[in-house]
């Protein structure tokens, strides 16, 4: 991929084909509707447990994953539905997972917090904040050692950047020059705790210098900006020049999880950020550049709605696990 940039033409427009851009928008809409569908199922008591919705953060997930080849890998977080969709997972098997069914990506054993699609290169969401960071570095080590040419994208939140695992992992990735890109999705809060109250630097990307790697902060609600930053980082990684840290500024519209009462932020702040809706922004840009029409967007929405409805139906109708299988897959069954 070339990094041409015509004056006033956003990176994404000049570097991706119209099909790719329309597909990006479709994925962002799919994530939004997916999350709304999940929320609805949860509210109606069809899904149990907890979930962390990424509504508002769609550009960050899709823009980052756009920079990848299919073989590349990602590690994700508790707020991982968007990453999973962006990396190519099917809504039906994701819903089946939330419904605890055998057809789910994790056969109903993992649920929302462990959603994964290993075949498509998503090594999994993680219930442990920063838990996926060393794992991403390990995957990058594999790629380098076995000369697989893969780059690993490691998603984590602003809250995760205060975990020791963040520090240890970035340090190792740097000294070993590994093909990994760290993407900190800074949505201003780790649960209820703002970065101002939890984090001793202004920009999380400022911490990159402590690991002698490039660090950049971008508007994570602008698909083009995030895809540009991640593309540069991915190319650097693929060229053997080591890791980077990309800070993607974004915002979650919903509460942290389903039990959040939003006492730590104002309605105004939320609505200000809703005005920066990444989907509307991308829609506008694509229309401006005549890549898509309003009607075509409507068509996408309709088809996405059907995809979600079908996915939920598939999930509901799928078989549940057998209770005899409670300890299946704890260990690998040895067929000898």
């Amino acid at each position: 991929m070339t990094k041409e940039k015509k004056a006033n033409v956003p990176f994404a427009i000049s570097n991706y084909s119209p099909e790719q851009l329309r597909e990006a928008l479709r994925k962002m809409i799919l994530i939004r509707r997916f999350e709304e569908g999940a929320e609805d199922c949860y509210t109606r008591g069809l899904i149990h447990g907890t979930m962390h919705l990424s509504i508002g953060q769609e550009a960050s997930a899709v823009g980052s994953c756009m920079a990848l080849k299919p073989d590349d890998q990602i590690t994700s977080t508790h707020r991982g539905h968007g990453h999973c969709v962006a990396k190519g997972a099917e809504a039906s098997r994701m819903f089946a997972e939330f419904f605890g069914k055998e057809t789910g990506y994790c056969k109903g054993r993992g649920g929302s917090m462990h959603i994964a699609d290993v075949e498509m290169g998503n090594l999994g969401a993680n219930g442990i904040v920063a838990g996926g960071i060393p794992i991403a570095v390990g995957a990058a080590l594999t790629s380098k050692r076995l000369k697989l040419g893969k780059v690993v994208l490691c998603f984590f939140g602003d809250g995760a950047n205060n975990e020791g695992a963040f520090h240890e992992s970035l340090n190792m990735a740097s000294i070993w020059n590994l093909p990994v890109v760290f993407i900190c999705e800074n949505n201003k809060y780790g649960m209820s705790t703002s970065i101002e109250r939890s984090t001793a630097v202004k920009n999380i990307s400022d911490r990159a210098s402590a690991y002698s790697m490039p660090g950049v902060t971008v508007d994570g609600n602008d698909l083009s900006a995030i895809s540009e930053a991640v593309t540069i980082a991915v190319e650097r990684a693929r060229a053997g020049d080591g890791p980077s840290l990309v800070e993607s500024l974004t915002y979650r519209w919903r509460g942290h999880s389903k039990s959040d009462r939003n006492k730590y932020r104002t309605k105004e702040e939320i609505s200000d950020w809703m005005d920066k809706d990444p989907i509307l922004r991308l829609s506008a840009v694509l229309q401006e550049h005549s890549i898509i029409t309003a009607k075509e967007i409507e068509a996408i929405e309709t088809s996405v709605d059907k995809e979600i409805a079908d996915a939920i139906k598939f999930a509901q109708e799928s078989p549940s696990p057998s209770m005899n299988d409670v300890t299946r897959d704890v260990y690998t069954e040895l067929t000898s």
Partner: protein
Amino acid sequence: MNEMTKTNTAEIFKDGDMVEMSYAEAIRDALDIALTNDERVILMGEDIGVYGGAFQVTGDLVHKHGEDRVIDTPISELGGAGVAVGAAATGLRPIFEFQFSDFAMLAMEQICNQAAKMRYMLGGNVSVPVVMRFPAGSGTGAAAQHSQSLEAWLAHVPGLKVIQPATPYDAKGMLLAALEDPDPVMIFEHKILYKSKGMVPKGHYTVPIGKAEIRREGTDVTIVATSIMVHKSLDAAKQLEEVGISAEVIDLKTIRPIDRETVLASVRKTSRLVCVYEAVKTLGIGAEISAMVAESDAFDYLDAPILRLGGADTPIPYNPDLEKAAVPQIDDIVVGVTQLVKGER
């Protein structure tokens, strides 16, 4: 939830001094009393301030006592716990909340290498009166990394005390006892119990660490249970009564140090022992209870093998039915005890 606390506490407190509250409220009440009475007490943890805690245990305490006393930590379990340990060793009385006990895995070093050993390694020249709280257990659909019962790990470590209150009454009284203890006290709270209700005395009182309690007397079999399994065992005991089996139910309460005498005396009386706990059966607290009895003089009183009902050998699954299948349920207790008493095991 059964009503055991009423009977239990009625002996000590007059009804007028008691008030009904949930387990979470009882803890909050204890925290409030501690913060009010002792300026050295501070609370530390993730989202315990304005959010009120992931399980709303700290609630609005930050508004009453301020951000300097009810401290939201960054998401830094190892460092956060270590700060609590250092603060405890130098004069504060920190109460540290892990948001889920599973995350305490990140802090084992500070808990077990530092807090537990500091007094011993330094020849008794320092005390570490830190209290840590661990919301534990399954039943919330939060899957393998948010549902564990890891209390046996800590009970394996000399220098720590480890408690598992099963009622609002004990949750408050044992927390206040923990605060008076000069050594590190680890409190495992089952998340499903937070909303359970019971009568709790107003004001300050303590329930001793290291003492078990017979929650129900019986003659045919002793059930030693911990935490939420106390309630399941009491419910099972009721069903067993209907088929003519008289079960004594012991609430162990403290798993380090174990109240050996209460358990042994009961086994000498009933001649049968069943241990019920939610943690993974292998090397869970039931292993220790069983082994403790099997090496004691009570061994000679045993008329049957010692039965353990613990969690299955699996991470906690997400699917709700599998999740239930992974830990002992009332039916399992009824069936297990019945078989044991009938000599079928």
